[in-house]
């Protein structure tokens, strides 16, 4: 286990407090899906360091494969540049981004999660350990939950940064206003889903294992669980199953949103080097029918996600709020405008 990654853990839950509506953080880097945390058990062969590097590389490459296959796969038109060239440009852009360090931290976290999940999915476990399997399982689950919270916070910030980038791009374009509304709406709901589903499922798991709230539980409390090994494993499987259900839907929102953003970006330039850079964009370079197709898909995905949240997480959704408490004037302004709908 990598100590540096685990040492920075703070809480099992993500904050639901309204955020400062700052626009200073911008990012145009490639985004991982919520449900794309490593769910494959790494093979046991080879040295730990070598194996870790292999898993790390696989996770890194997967984000780009997802972009090329699942997200750009939604485009109803031929890509204007070769796939490999687009992928290389995305990687280059990510490596040069200001927040590449955060991206690397995320990669480190996801690699650790792969090993933790692998260990939790295996009945073999670490045979060399002198600890009882039950305690070992609980410790691993604790580490997994803590790291997951850290990972999701990183992803949430990526989304916020990307939305800010999209706003800048929109300001330098003559794109219809609905473009930013659609991207913004999808981002707001996806990040809400991330927080709501992760917190709800963590809470459910912690309650089930030790009868305490995830907001209050300490590692010591957690390890005191008197559940049997069988019940612990069952609860963990239920946790991953339920979370996967929610994240599959929210990842569909990401797919369509990325497809829309990449369409606008890729098809408005003749030079791949300007892809993912802030520049002037003209609607004349784009096909309105393609834009409509992508926004229809995006609206459908957002509707599905809203349905899941209202149906499965109604209580948590009620407690959630987007209202920025620290900027009344902006809130008043927008509310006043919406009043006149």
């Amino acid at each position: 286990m990598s100590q540096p990654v685990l040492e920075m853990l703070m809480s099992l839950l993500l904050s639901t407090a309204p955020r400062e509506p700052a626009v200073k953080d911008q990012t145009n880097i490639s985004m991982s899906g919520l449900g794309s945390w490593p769910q494959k058990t790494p093979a046991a062969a080879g040295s730990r360091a070598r194996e870790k590097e292999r898993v790390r590389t696989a996770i890194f490459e997967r984000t780009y494969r997802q972009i090329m296959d699942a997200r750009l796969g939604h485009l109803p038109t031929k890509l204007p540049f070769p796939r490999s060239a687009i992928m290389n440009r995305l990687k280059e852009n990510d490596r040069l981004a200001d927040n590449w360090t955060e991206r690397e931290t995320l990669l480190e976290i996801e690699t650790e999660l792969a090993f933790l999940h692998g260990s939790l999915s295996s009945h073999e476990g670490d045979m060399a350990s002198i600890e009882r399997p039950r305690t070992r399982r609980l410790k691993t689950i604790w580490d997994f939950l803590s790291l997951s919270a850290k990972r999701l916070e990183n992803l949430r910030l990526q989304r916020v940064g990307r939305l800010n980038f999209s706003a800048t791009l929109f300001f330098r374009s003559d794109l219809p206003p609905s473009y930013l509304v659609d991207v913004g709406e999808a981002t707001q709901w996806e990040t809400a889903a991330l927080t709501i589903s992760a917190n709800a499922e963590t809470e459910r798991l912690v309650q089930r294992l030790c009868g305490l709230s995830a907001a209050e539980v300490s590692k010591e409390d957690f390890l005191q669980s008197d559940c049997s090994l069988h019940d612990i494993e069952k609860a963990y499987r239920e946790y991953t199953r339920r979370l996967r259900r929610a994240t599959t839907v929210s990842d569909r929102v990401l797919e369509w949103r990325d497809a829309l953003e990449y369409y606008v970006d890729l098809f408005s330039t003749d030079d791949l080097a300007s892809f993912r850079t802030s520049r002037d964009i003209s609607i004349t370079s784009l096909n309105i029918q393609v834009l409509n197709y992508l926004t229809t898909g995006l609206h459908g995905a957002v509707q599905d996600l809203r349905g899941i949240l209202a149906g499965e997480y109604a209580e948590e959704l009620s407690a959630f709020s987007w209202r920025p408490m620290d900027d009344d004037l902006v809130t008043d302004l927008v509310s006043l405008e919406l009043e006149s709908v």
Partner: protein
Amino acid sequence: MDPLVLLDTNVILAHCLDPAMDTKGELAGEVFTILSNEGLKPCITESVRTEFETKLHHRVGQIADVARRLSREPSPTSDASESTLATLEVIFARLRKDAPEAAGALQLLESRLARAVNENLPVTPEMWTAAAGNIAVQSTALLAEIQRRFDLSGVEVFRTPSGVDYDRFRGIVPKPDLENIASAAGLAKRNKCKVIFVTLESPLHAMRDNIAAADPDVIITTPAFLQAQISRRRAEGN
């Protein structure tokens, strides 16, 4: 048999925007309270739901567009030949001309920036651009917030029944309401019940007799008369 109570888009919007914000919000809140007390579920037609989402998107889009226009204006401190306040006034006059639909947003922005200038706070180009970006991004957060309230409002959405007869109401019902009223009539026919359609909008309420003449099962009312309408229709049903 209980009547089916359908809400107009303006009732849902007022309810979801902020129930405590103004009279409309209070009236919409009353509708939900009455229905809850009467054991009736608030319902809307699919057409009302679509109108709700479309109007919200459109309005937030207008705000984003104004924010874009604002971001393209030079920061008021960049013109050394004029006082900052005078430059600000020129900018806002131009924005009002270009985007008359965003009067409220512009008024609030103007007062904030004018106050900042009066208090000698620096209106830097960075602050200017950041303010515009902030407005655009926050407007999408508010959009999601209103949608969240809608999703949790417990409103049941009825799909438009097949064979809806629009012609019966053409020329009677204002065009934007035609689909909502025709769908309400279609639901009354399909469910074999009276439909009470609650609106905050006076033109539609003014047409209530004409609508009732076209279809006696569709009763247009306002929040003030909802309670009485429910009692009357229940009495008729028994």
